[in-house]
């Protein structure tokens, strides 16, 4: 079973295109997706996943299960950065520890999308509200990390600080806003809207995802060099923390009675690390933090680890536990 999962995952076109992107850089090909195409592809993915999630909620209706899941998601997103921060503080400055903690407390939409494509390939159902869980998990870690930074750092003293800006950046940054907005529109327009948008949001989705992962592969491979600076400690952290988060998430999901599909997505959310919303917020709120640590960690280690090894691993554990 597990081997089948691994193979089924590895032969999935999106994963293969991620590898192709890495290979392009390693073989010094000049292949690249020119800006601003990656940005528009990522807006498309957020738009589509948000809308589909909203339609899912409209179809299933609001249930207590949803409320429980969303609450659990918020809790995990606030707790993870806390304990990550204290682990990181052993080796790093306050600014860097806070920024990396935010990175791992927040989530990666593309990991979530890849995971849901994985579930769809295996015909395992999941709830549309998991998208809401994802959107909800993007911001708390940013707030927590900035709080930690301001409480613990001397550098930050005396510097004027705009809470409103932080708030806006945490909850109204482009990606959170688009996913929440699309989700809401999905809820409002329901199945009628879904029918009109299906060719755009569903049919061509996998293809666009392949293209985006091709670019992710290119960018991740380019960042590999930065990892030398990160050293052994951070490299290990970038693999072990996701696994640890998953180890907390799976029993929690089980205790809360989530379905297998929902539990899997909840786990991947906890295990994933942000490389879009968090860097955007950090350069604003913790400019002292070094982006050439937290960006390559999440992009060049945690992301590939999760989509290649993590996904089949977490799902195998869940399959055992639930059956």
């Amino acid at each position: 079973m597990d081997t089948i999962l691994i193979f089924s995952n590895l032969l999935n076109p999106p994963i293969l295109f991620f590898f192709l992107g890495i290979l392009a850089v390693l073989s010094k090909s000049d292949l690249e997706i020119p800006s601003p195409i990656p940005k528009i592809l990522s807006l498309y993915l957020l738009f589509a996943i948000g809308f589909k999630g909203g339609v899912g909620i409209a179809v299933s209706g609001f249930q207590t299960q949803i409320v429980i899941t969303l609450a659990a998601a918020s809790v995990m997103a606030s707790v993870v950065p806390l304990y990550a921060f204290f682990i990181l503080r052993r080796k790093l400055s306050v600014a860097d520890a806070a920024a990396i903690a935010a990175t791992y407390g927040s989530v990666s939409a593309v990991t979530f999308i890849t995971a849901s494509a994985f579930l769809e390939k295996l015909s395992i159902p999941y709830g549309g509200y998991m998208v809401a869980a994802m959107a909800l998990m993007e911001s708390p870690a940013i707030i927590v990390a900035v709080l930690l930074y301001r409480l613990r750092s001397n550098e930050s003293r005396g510097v004027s600080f705009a809470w409103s800006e932080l708030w806006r950046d945490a909850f109204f940054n482009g990606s959170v806003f688009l996913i929440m907005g699309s989700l809401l529109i999905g809820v409002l327009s329901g199945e009628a809207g879904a029918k009109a948008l299906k060719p755009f949001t569903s049919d061509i989705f996998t293809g666009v995802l392949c293209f985006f992962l091709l670019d992710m592969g290119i960018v991740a491979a380019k960042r590999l060099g930065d990892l030398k600076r990160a050293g052994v400690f951070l490299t290990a952290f970038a693999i072990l923390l996701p696994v640890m988060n998953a180890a907390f998430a799976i029993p929690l999901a089980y205790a809360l009675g989530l379905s297998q599909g929902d539990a899997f997505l909840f786990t991947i959310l906890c295990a994933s690390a942000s490389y879009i919303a968090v860097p955007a917020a950090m350069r604003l709120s913790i400019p002292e933090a070094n982006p050439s640590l937290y960006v390559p960690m999440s992009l060049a280690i945690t992301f590939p680890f999760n989509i290649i090894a993590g996904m089949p691993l977490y799902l195998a554990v869940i399959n055992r536990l639930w059956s």
Partner: protein
Amino acid sequence: MIPVKKIEIIVDELEVPKVLKLLDKAGVSGYTVIKDATGKGERGLRDGDELTGVFANSYVMTACPSESVSLIVESVRPILKKHGGVCLVSEAQWLIH
């Protein structure tokens, strides 16, 4: 043609609105912005090749009378201090049309 000072500021894209507000306050007659500048400096490589263009600079230029330079330069300084960036001042002749 009248002599003016050309001020060039290279700064994180995100800080551009703030810089432009300062220029407006300093009473410059106009400015020009080129987005999507990449670069390298004290704070490392900013090649904007991140998936979201988060780490890109912009290039801001304004031509102004030499009297305004110190006002502009001093108001921009704290932004450069906090977020990095470069500010260059040079001489030019402005064609009055």
